């Protein structure tokens, strides 16, 4: 594989594994994906023997790819775990969502959303799979992980470029 895509693939995979491990998500919150992007940039400079400033576009691209790979892998892991466990974070937080919707008196449309989520919940309980849930988490992961991946890319670029003040090592 092209060395350009290997670091984002490796770090994206590692991030998705870490974000699936129970407890780690609570521990590191939103820092896993940015940290993975930072490591992607470090790995990229090492594997490609780059000894110069990282460009903004390059940092954003690598961060974006890390986020995208992480999104795909973590969706796969999430679906796999959901299939075997027949439960997930969404189902566990459903009573709280229901309570909040009642507290906020969000109306009929919100109740329709809730009905959809309950349908998802019953599908997962019965078969371990829900196509709506798959689309939902894949979309969420792609959006959020891409954003945070790019932020991590910027962080990595900032860290690496500090060594090359004014373009001189």
């Amino acid at each position, binding site marked *: 594989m092209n060395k350009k895509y290997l670091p984002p693939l490796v770090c994206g995979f590692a991030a998705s594994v870490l974000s699936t491990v129970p407890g780690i998500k609570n521990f590191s919150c939103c820092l896993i994906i940015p940290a993975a992007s930072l490591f992607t940039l470090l790995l990229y400079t090492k594997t490609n023997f780059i000894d110069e400033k990282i460009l903004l576009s390059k940092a954003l691209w690598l961060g974006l790819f890390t986020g995208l790979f992480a999104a795909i892998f973590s969706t796969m892991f999430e679906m796999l775990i959901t299939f075997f466990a027949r439960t997930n*974070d969404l189902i566990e937080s459903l009573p709280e969502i229901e309570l909040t919707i009642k507290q906020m008196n969000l109306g009929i449309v919100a109740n329709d*959303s809730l009905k959809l989520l309950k349908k998802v919940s019953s599908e997962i309980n019965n078969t371990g799979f829900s196509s709506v849930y798959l689309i939902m988490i894949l979309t969420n992961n792609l959006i959020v992980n891409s954003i945070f991946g790019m932020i991590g890319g910027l962080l990595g670029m900032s860290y690496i470029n500090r060594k090359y003040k004014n373009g001189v090592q």
Partner: protein
Amino acid sequence: MKSKSLLLRIVLLIFISIWVIGFIPQLFNYDLLGFIYPFQKQLYSNVCHQIPEKSFSINQIHLLVCARCTGIYFGSLTAALIMIFYRGKLFIKTFQLILISLPLLLDVAFVSAGVYNYTKIFALITGLLFGSGVFIYILYSIENLLFKNE
């Protein structure tokens, strides 16, 4: 301050503001957008555990991220806002960034180890420090790279 640099700072401020507004349900008119709440909660669950006991609440409705994440994002927002009015560049060394991040890391470590109990205020403050520090650290690099000749 150069106009391009100011524009960049305004764009970043807008992006961060949108993100921050997104996790405060109280700012939304759910009479019109009631259906989005469950999906909004799901979206932010990607970046935060959303444990109610660790999240701030307004009118008994919890924010969609925990106190620490609230601090991180508000820290970035505050720094972005300040940088609109601050003429010039703020520079944070990597060592200083680590120093700023240390309270957050230590708080996480100590709470996880059971040395002391989780407090929302302390999580918020450490998050604020970290978020503002990271924003300034990144902003300097972007500006240095894009506008180094100006």
